[in-house]
């Protein structure tokens, strides 16, 4: 028996009380949880839970480039491998990297490259492996965040972290951080990434219809949301070392008391 499930989207993306289908306000982000140093054998790694998205990233490098013809004699290269697990989406995702994976890998590498000092590592590559375990809208933004965290955790010199967030239009209203269903059924989708060194926009994609005024609102709302996420990123990076500091001082305090 063949089971056919049609893609059906609700007519309305707002509830009667004015909130979104998952109960959020228009400017509210989904709950975010980040962690660094989760993969022991990688040079740097990070894990992100953003709403229903669950993403791992691992960084290796600088190391020799394979295949060798990709190596640049004057600078290093950043290679990003964005992959989705077969069970990450509703229909089984075919595991072979397709057009979408290649595009997302490219845009993540292009938007992180400006903050790295690749000219210091000629002939080598940094490799970022991003594995989406669970996907629910906005994985390209989430992957950018987790990749920049993993690079920072690996000790790669960076001008700043990179933060990304999607802003969009659903049922004629501008909302921040689109979920999977809002992304598919909504009117417009605008993922943007910000590098905090000089506050530059590093990624801007657009899909849908929107007028110029709405576009400006999107950018302002996007930046506000990105600032919130950036704080969480900084805290995550610090917490790895601060937790050790605290545990150490606790031990010394307790042992000192006993003596």
């Amino acid at each position: 028996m063949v089971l056919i499930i049609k893609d059906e989207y609700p007519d309305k993306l707002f509830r009667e009380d004015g909130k979104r289908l998952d109960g959020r306000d228009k400017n509210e982000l989904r709950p975010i949880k980040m962690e660094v140093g989760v993969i022991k054998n990688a040079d740097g790694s990070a894990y992100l839970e953003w709403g229903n998205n669950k993403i791992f990233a691992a960084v290796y490098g600088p190391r020799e480039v394979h295949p060798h013809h990709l190596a640049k004699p004057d600078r290093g290269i950043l290679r990003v491998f964005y992959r989705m697990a077969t069970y990450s989406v509703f229909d089984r995702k075919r595991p072979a990297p397709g057009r979408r994976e290649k595009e997302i890998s490219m845009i993540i590498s292009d938007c992180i490259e400006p903050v790295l000092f690749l000219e210091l590592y000629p002939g080598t590559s940094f490799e970022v492996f991003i594995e989406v375990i669970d996907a629910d809208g906005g994985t390209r933004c989430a992957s950018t965040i987790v990749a920049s965290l993993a690079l920072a955790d690996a000790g790669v010199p960076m001008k700043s972290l990179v933060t990304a967030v999607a802003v969009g239009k659903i049922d004629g209203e501008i909302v921040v951080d689109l979920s999977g269903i809002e992304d598919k059924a909504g009117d417009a989708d605008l993922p943007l990434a910000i590098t905090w060194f000089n506050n530059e926009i590093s990624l801007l994609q657009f899909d849908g219809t929107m007028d110029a005024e709405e576009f400006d609102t999107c950018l302002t709302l996007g930046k506000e949301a990105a600032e919130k996420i950036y704080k969480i990123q900084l805290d995550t990076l610090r917490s790895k070392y601060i937790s050790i500091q605290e545990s150490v001082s606790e031990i010394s305090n307790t042992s000192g008391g006993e003596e």
Partner: protein
Amino acid sequence: MEDEGEIQEDDEFEDEERSRELVVPGEVLTEDVNNFLPGRGTILNDTRDKIISLHIGLKQINKNYINVIPLKGIYTPQPGDKVIAIVVDKNPVKYRCDINAKDDAQLKPRNTERRIKTRLGRGRDYQRDHRDESNTDRFVIGDVLIVKVLSADRLNKPELTTVGKYLGKKNGGIVISIDPPKIPRVIGRSGSMIKMLKSLTNCNIFVTQNGRIWLRGDNIAYERLLIDAIYKIEREAHTSGLTDRIQAFVKNEKIKRGIK
């Protein structure tokens, strides 16, 4: 033993009592660019009104320079460094050695033996210890060598030598690896940590800048204790009062493990 020796290195963590604020990449260290200059691990932004950190590390103010000491990173070979290399490949012309840097280093046979100047006349004034220059029989793949970096830059492969004090092949012992930026902590202020570890565990230790540590003790119990202590130093490298804590740890563990 002939294997005594450690490398003295400018102590990067010397300001132990002063501020050791944890900073992350992109964090603004100061906006006071008139009184401070960007030092190691920092950069000025494009409008030149902020000093920004490049690493996850500890902020340190040295006179009017602001430095960031990274807590994690890769080893960059510098000419003159003494490092532990592992022979990974060889051919009749040279050895290829892993020195934990981004490139494999090369060791040529002419750099593995002392060249004695003798008078042979007619232009041949070097006698090569009865060895042909294209001979790479001295070491085999997998050997652990203490080497000195002769030349290193970001474009070419580093070149090594085994001629010099403390250099050459290491027989026996254990090699462990830690994060290269944490090596100064294992050495301690003017070698205090390493002296303490040596006297408490009766082990020979050779600490090198590429994050590898060679050690050999009287028995395996001491070696294990020392390895645990070194990993503890690595984990807690950014905390203060480390030497005292490690001393207490080693003494406690000695009692716990029943070794005197």
